[in-house]
């Protein structure tokens, strides 16, 4: 139990550190993203689902393979000791308290198929869906779900609390004039769709009151993968010595309900090696030792029944059906066929370096790492604007923040290559869309008011102010082949509600491989951050207006 506590605490601590470190203002982006990627790639169902759906084997597959095969040696020790989802459920269970009036534990091995087989059916459905080319792993991948919980919900909430504390402490800090604390800028990450995260995990935590680790027992497909290999764990098998009086304390203490009516036996596909049973046994009769060691052999109870063949087929059919639902949907964007008047959601501005939409949706596991990492909080989870298949996928929302020209954070942290990792020279050319001036809302165009904020903030000089007939002020024009869709104009447009300049995914470069720069140049783009050398160009454009005056001057 103490070993388990220590390992689990360390693992959860590392994981939270990693997710916290994803954000650039943490100053720990490097180790944070490496660690977060490592954790996410531990999830066999995540990696398997993505690789099957995207029809490409990632080099990192071996890591998930190691975890899956760890069942042969350690049983489901991963679930009980490493998995941050399991650790969070344990913590939540401890905080919420068990339901004391719960009935006696139900027998793990019941006649006929029990609810524990559901996790195998979930796994089957996900794999069938992936085989059909659609990834729905994000609904059930424990590592993706838990990364999202911490990255988009818990840590932003903690930051909110820290801000409130700083505000309360302001008079003291001012008196001390401690610059580093007084001016500390605590990020305020905000995300769309918090209610979904709250409801989902609220439900899980509530169910954990009734059945501890409800998720791990009945639903988790990653646990199911490991369980498939956990029938006879070689190294850490639970064994019960002769001292056992059959009191059943271990049965009642087991959070997984992995001990059958005969407490000397163990259902190894359910045991997560948390050692709770060893801790509660009054006789000290329980130990976790190698399968073959000692006189008393570890005894595997008959495992809970796997789903029947008919159920497997049904689950597979449901998975394939889900894939068909997505593939034939109008708004989903999962189909490779993007021609034929197919409407593209105007909000579907993806992060720079996002691979083509069908592959992007197959690869993206909705872990929220990119959203956590995005320094301007521009990346937000999609709710339903890109269909069911696009649920929680990252969208660029410029009104919240623009995309920084030098920033490659989202691609750097993406665990599955849904967003490509780009070098700065390539990054510049990863055009995500094009800005458009809505003249009927523009202060200059519609209201004849002096405003040039869009030009002021454009990092690419993609806006040009020209004099227009009948107007006293210069008016903005977007130079499409210089615009990268970064959205700084939209972010800062002073017009409220719908801004007067908006970024749409029009003209976005989405490449599965190859150079963005070459592709952009061959399309005639003229993207340029700013001149490389000091700009002393006598022939610099003089934007004369009709009255011969440069913008801003009066006769």
């Amino acid at each position: 139990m103490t070993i388990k506590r220590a390992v689990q605490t360390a693992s959860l601590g590392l994981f939270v550190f990693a997710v916290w470190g994803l954000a650039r203002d943490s100053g720990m982006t490097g180790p944070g993203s490496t660690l977060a990627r490592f954790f996410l790639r531990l999830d066999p169902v995540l990696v398997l689902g993505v690789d099957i759906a995207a029809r490409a084997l990632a080099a990192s597959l071996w890591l998930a393979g190691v975890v899956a095969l760890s069942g042969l040696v350690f049983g489901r020790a991963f679930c009980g000791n490493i998995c941050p989802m399991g650790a969070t459920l344990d913590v939540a269970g401890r905080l919420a308290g068990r339901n004391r009036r719960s009935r006696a534990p139900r027998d793990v091995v019941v006649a006929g198929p029990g609810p524990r087989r559901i996790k195998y059916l979930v796994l089957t459905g996900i794999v069938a869906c992936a085989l059909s080319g659609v990834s729905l792993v994000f609904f059930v991948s424990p590592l993706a779900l838990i990364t999202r919980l911490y990255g988009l919900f818990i840590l932003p909430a903690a930051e909110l609390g820290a801000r409130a504390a700083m505000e309360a402490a302001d008079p003291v800090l001012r008196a001390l004039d401690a610059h580093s604390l007084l001016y500390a800028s605590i990020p305020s990450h905000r995300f769309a769709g918090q209610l979904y995260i709250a409801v989902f995990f609220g439900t899980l935590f509530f169910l954990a009151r009734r059945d501890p680790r409800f998720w791990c027992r009945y639903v988790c497909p990653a646990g199911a993968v490991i369980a498939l290999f956990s029938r006879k764990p070689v190294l850490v098998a639970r064994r019960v010595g002769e001292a056992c009086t059959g009191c059943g304390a271990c049965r009642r203490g087991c959070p997984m309900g992995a001990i059958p009516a005969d407490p000397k036996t163990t259902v190894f596909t359910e045991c997560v090696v948390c050692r709770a049973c060893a801790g509660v046994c009054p006789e000290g009769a329980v130990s976790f030792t190698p399968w073959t060691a000692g006189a008393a052999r570890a005894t595997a109870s008959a495992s809970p029944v796997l789903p029947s063949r008919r159920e497997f087929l049904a689950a597979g059919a449901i998975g394939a059906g889900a894939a068909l639902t997505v593939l034939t949907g109008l708004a989903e964007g999962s189909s490779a066929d993007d021609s034929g008047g197919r409407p593209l959601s105007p909000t579907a501005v993806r992060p720079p370096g996002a691979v083509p939409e069908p592959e992007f949706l197959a690869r993206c596991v909705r872990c929220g790492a990119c959203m956590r990492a995005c320094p301007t909080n521009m990346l937000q989870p999609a709710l339903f604007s890109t269909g069911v298949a696009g649920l929680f996928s990252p969208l660029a929302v410029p009104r919240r923040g623009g995309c920084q020209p030098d920033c490659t954070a989202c691609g750097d942290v993406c665990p599955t290559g849904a967003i490509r990792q780009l070098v700065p020279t390539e990054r510049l050319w990863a055009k995500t869309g094009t800005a458009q001036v809505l003249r009927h809302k523009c202060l200059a165009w519609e209201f004849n008011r002096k405003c040039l904020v869009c030009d002021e903030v454009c990092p690419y000089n993609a806006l040009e102010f020209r004099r227009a007939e009948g107007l006293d002020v210069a008016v903005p024009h977007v130079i499409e082949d210089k615009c990268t869709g970064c959205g700084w104009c939209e972010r800062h447009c002073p017009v409220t509600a719908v801004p007067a300049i908006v970024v749409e995914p029009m003209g976005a470069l989405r490449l599965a491989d190859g150079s963005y720069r070459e592709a952009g140049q061959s399309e005639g783009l003229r993207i340029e951050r700013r001149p490389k050398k000091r700009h002393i160009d006598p022939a610099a454009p003089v934007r004369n207006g009709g009255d011969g005056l440069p913008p801003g001057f009066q006769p």
Partner: protein
Amino acid sequence: MAKRFSPLARLHGFEPLNPEATGLTRREFLKWQMGGACALAAGSVGLVGPGRLLFPSPALADGAPDIALATGRPATATRAAVELLGGMAAFVKPGQRVVIKPNISFPNPPEYATTTHPEVVRELAVMCREAGASRVMILDHTLYDRTACLEQSGVVAACESVEPGMVQALVDARFYREAAIPLGVSMKSTRVMADVLDADVLISAPVAKSHSSAGVSLSMKNLMGLIFDRSVMHSRHDLNVAIVDLVSLFRPALAVVDATRVLTTNGPGGPGKVDVLDTVIASRDPVAADARAVLLSEWYGRRFEPRQVKHIALAHERGLGRMDVENLRESRVAV
């Protein structure tokens, strides 16, 4: 040069001031500064010119020019320009809290002339310290990502050795307080940096650049970086009127316009044509400093009168300063 420069004489009013021709050679200026250094060694307070020793500051202020122009490297020119006005001690008393407002709103290096030169900012901070300021902060509300602006403008790196943490880009609402603008014509109140409200002295230290909405962005336009909601200046108010409203609120004690490089086209963001003028303009009157900067440089390849910049003309009309620089006393120095 027939008449030799004598700061003492000028401060006493012995020498008639010719706004066009009070040139100082580098050697002469250094000698003049040496005098100040000796005075300091002799037990005076603050590093100031000899005039400071003989007369208290009001007399000094009376004798000081209205506008000071110094040419040279950014740091030395900055110091020279302020010294011509009587030194920083004329503006900052021992124990006072100072806020310096440079323009560091763009994540560009100094050569793009979209931000104040780091050496200009640093020198001002050092001078404030020498004058005995108890607290010197260099603050801006950056348009772009604060970290990028702080790093790429080079201002943090330059000022770190003066005092770590003295340069801050304040983008959180918690650093701002609502303040009334009693003399505001269009903008009657706005949220202002609490540090500025609590400060004794405000120094506006912009870079000289063109601005496609306001014509030029100088020490008055620079004040926009001290408020929280910049965008209402464009959307709810006439920008030029609102700039002048801010001047009426802030009344900076000293304006130091960094014209070492001037972005003469495509401002405020650039890239545009950058002219290297190696000049720093200082004045207690921000309107005069801005007017002088308009005359100093060409803009879009042409020459303009200060009145052709609407917010300068408005500020003059509202009595917040003078744009008729031809009627003001001006001193120049080359260092």
